[in-house]
């Protein structure tokens, strides 16, 4: 037990030290993790053989990442990118495989070796690229979307590649190992006839899509009604792990299955809550994965083949970049987008490791080649953050100078207003905003309420808006406004405090229970506070006056006067409240001022009714003597 804890501690320490430093130096978190791995692995020798085991475990981070990517992608938008997916992805994979295979053949490798190598290096690193896109906010650019299409196509292509590799096995290698019993992975489709296999695959994909659509909602609702946060987390994990396991059992890619499930759930009201729950696991696992890549570098193989490995790495990345550049030209990507696609996908990826070990299991490649190629994959992953740095510092400034600051494709899909709470209060706010074409993201913790609101056609999500991670996935960092319209006084106060602390640029509009609560919210930094009953009570009051046959325009003016005095005195009262905030709020200055407010309002409004000479100004006729003065002037 202590041994495991010590191991975990070493990994965490390495990450905690290296990642923030890398980030500060502008290298990005991925490079930070990789360096951390190199430090604890090859350099200090703190971790050893177990890295490969951990790496298999950490690869699950990729599955989670694809699930999250799927959540961001509604089926509609997935369908819209079909031509890109097949065109861009297909061309990239086909060309790259072809060129690398050709080069390998040129260096007189047998055809089966060459093809295996070509396939392995045609794949890019979903983990690094998507993580970096997210960090740099490049997902919505034309180049980012194209790169994503290619990655998605590659993830799909892994399945047939896995099927192909055993066919490329070398008879002599197989013969050598014939007496070794090798580990068979758990599968329910082994030995099935092809048609039955096809049926099983179709059935499981159908189960994920249909089940995700119809079963997930009742399940989440049931879980949400328990109001236990950790159970929701458990459910989210159960979902992702379950799908991954199912896909593994039928021999499909778990990452792809998770992606599919994500797409199915993209429309769900539980989307943001799911995202918030899975996100930390994904982040940690991916980090762990990158560390293991760094730690897994084999120093012996490296030192004896250093120039060969470096040359191969350079060659692979050059070939991949060239193919990508040509494809980017074919698909008419403009300016910086062309370079983003070219530079971001020029590395080999984590699936490369998977395929290499699979190739080893199936005797498709000899072990000495695999050892070298693993290093090439790792090195190219190491260099990717460097390519992104080049993109940021060389490519982007160049296109910024030549005209537009950023290409116009960066349409913000996140809502510009986050509304927390969609009860009696939030609904009215939301309706007004939506009617004015304002993009809103509505959050509420009552799943019944969300259900109801969704039925009227409002985009609402289940989620506890008082939790920072939920606010984050709802996109508060991009939002112009946060509107807090929840009942609970303390939660509202906590939210104001957190939001103003973490996102000082986001304007926070908050609903207060009463005056005291309003002052508390104001003190915590809310930019606008309104008491939930103030305006409706005022309306009721004016209607009462109108019902008593007082002239409606006069009533309106009285209401205005009330508001004017209230808003002026409000600041005075607030300051008194601040002064007294430490002590008891009874029998003190604040109370006196409150009485004063009552008196001011009363006296200002009263005089008018009695002597027709208001203390309020406005439309006051000149005194009666004035007309005589006019004659005098003549």
């Amino acid at each position, binding site marked *: 037990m202590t041994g495991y804890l010590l191991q975990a501690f070493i990994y965490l320490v390495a990450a905690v030290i290296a990642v923030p430093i890398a980030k500060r130096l502008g290298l990005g978190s991925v490079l930070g993790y990789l360096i951390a791995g190199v430090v604890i692995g090859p350099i200090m020798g703190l971790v050893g053989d177990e890295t490969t085991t951990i790496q298999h475990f950490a690869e699950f981070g990729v599955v989670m990442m694809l699930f999250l990517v799927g959540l961001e992608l509604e089926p509609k938008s997935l369908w819209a990118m079909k031509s890109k997916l097949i065109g861009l992805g297909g061309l990239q994979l086909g060309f790259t495989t072809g060129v690398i295979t050709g080069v390998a053949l040129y260096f007189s490798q047998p055809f089966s070796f060459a093809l295996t190598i070509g396939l392995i290096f045609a794949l890019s690193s979903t983990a690094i690229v998507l993580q970096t896109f997210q960090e740099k906010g490049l997902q919505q650019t034309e180049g980012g979307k194209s790169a994503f299409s290619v990655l998605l196509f590659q993830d799909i292509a892994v399945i047939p590649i896995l099927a192909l590799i055993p066919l490329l096995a070398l008879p002599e290698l197989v013969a050598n190992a014939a007496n070794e019993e090798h580990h068979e992975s758990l599968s329910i489709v082994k030995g099935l006839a092809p048609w039955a296999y096809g049926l099983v695959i179709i059935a499981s994909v159908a189960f994920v899509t249909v089940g995700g659509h119809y079963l997930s909602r009742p399940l989440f609702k049931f879980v949400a009604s328990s109001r236990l946060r950790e159970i929701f987390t458990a459910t989210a994990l159960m979902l992702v792990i379950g799908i991954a396991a199912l896909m593994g059992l039928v021999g499909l890619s778990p990452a792809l299955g998770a992606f599919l499930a994500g797409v199915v759930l993209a429309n769900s009201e539980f989307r943001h809550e799911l995202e918030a729950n899975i996100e930390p696991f994904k982040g940690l696992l991916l980090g762990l994965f990158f560390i293991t890549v760094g730690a897994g570098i084999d120093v012996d193989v490296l030192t004896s083949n250093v120039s060969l490995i470096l040359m191969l790495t350079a060659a692979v990345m050059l070939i991949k970049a060239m193919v990508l550049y040509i494809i980017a030209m074919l698909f008419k990507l403009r300016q910086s987008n062309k370079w983003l696609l070219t530079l971001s996908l020029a590395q080999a990826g984590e699936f490369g490791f998977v395929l290499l070990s699979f190739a080893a299991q199936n005797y498709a490649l000899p072990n000495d080649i695999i050892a070298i190629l693993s290093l090439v994959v790792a090195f190219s992953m190491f260099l990717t953050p460097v390519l992104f740095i080049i993109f940021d510092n060389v490519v982007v400034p160049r296109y910024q100078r030549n005209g537009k600051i950023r290409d116009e494709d960066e349409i913000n899909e996140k809502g510009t207003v986050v509304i927390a709470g969609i009860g009696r209060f939030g609904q009215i706010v939301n309706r007004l905003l939506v009617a004015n074409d304002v993009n809103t993201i509505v959050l509420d913790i009552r799943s019944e309420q969300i259900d109801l609101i969704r039925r009227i056609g409002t985009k609402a999500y289940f989620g506890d808006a008082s939790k920072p991670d939920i606010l984050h996935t709802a996109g508060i960092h991009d939002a112009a406004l946060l509107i807090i319209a929840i009942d609970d006084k303390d939660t509202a106060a906590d939210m104001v405090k957190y939001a103003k602390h973490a996102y000082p640029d986001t304007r926070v509009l908050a609903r207060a229970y009463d005056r005291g609560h309003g002052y508390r919210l104001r003190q915590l930094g809310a930019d606008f506070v309104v008491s939930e009953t103030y305006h409706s009570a005022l309306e009721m009051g004016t209607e009462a006056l109108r019902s008593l046959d007082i002239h409606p325009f006069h009533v309106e003016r009285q209401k*205005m006067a009330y*508001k*004017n005095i209230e808003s002026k005195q409000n600041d005075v009262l607030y300051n008194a409240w601040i002064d007294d905030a430490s002590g008891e709020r009874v029998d003190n200055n604040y109370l006196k001022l409150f009485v004063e407010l009552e008196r001011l309002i009363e006296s200002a409004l009263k005089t008018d009714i009695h002597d027709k000479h208001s203390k309020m*100004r*406005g*439309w*006051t*006729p*000149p*005194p009666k003597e*004035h007309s005589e*003065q006019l004659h005098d002037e003549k």
Partner: protein
Amino acid sequence: MTSDAKKHQYRKTEKETVSHMDQSTQKVLVLFAHPAQASSEVNLHLFRDASATPSVTAVDLYYDYPDFNIDIEREQQRLLEHDTIIFLFPLFWYSTPSILKEWQDLVLEYGFAYGQGGSALQGKKFLCAITAGGKEEAYQSDGFNHFTIRQLLQPLEQMARITQMAYIAPFALFGSRTAQEEKRIETHRQKWQQLLNMLVNDTLNMSKATRLENLADLCTKEGNH
């Protein structure tokens, strides 16, 4: 229009009053009234030009008082702090948009602007900067509108007189609905800028400026000096 520009459009453009201005500099207050700014083609430009001019305070009345609840005290204070008052508006039914009338009704109080002790505006200059949809020919005694623009604005001229301000001819752009298509806005904006500069530097030829029919005629290369 990008959202940023839009944000800017509705942002308050009133500038801080500068106290350490040298003596010869005059301060100009532009009171802008346009209730449908989304469809404005000329006035919004003039308002922004004014906002960007030093020593000019530009106030968007519909921005400050969307509910017409005009702060009398604040508006009177503004008047006291400036030497020239300009109403900037599109002509609505031969007069100002309603908020400017409301502004007059509320701010120009007895004892402040007129009547016993009401000489706060004495010696200030006043003018209207307007856009009118009709062509210049329409605003003639024998034209479609039967009256010249100066005649139609006589209530404002009399307002200036009774509040003891010097009334300057209106600065008008006629045929404003087609000014954009006919590319006349740029010239008008240049004239406007010239007028503001002359008011700030106190170089406007007042004897000419009070007698003209349209002040815009003065702000040409020939009319300048």
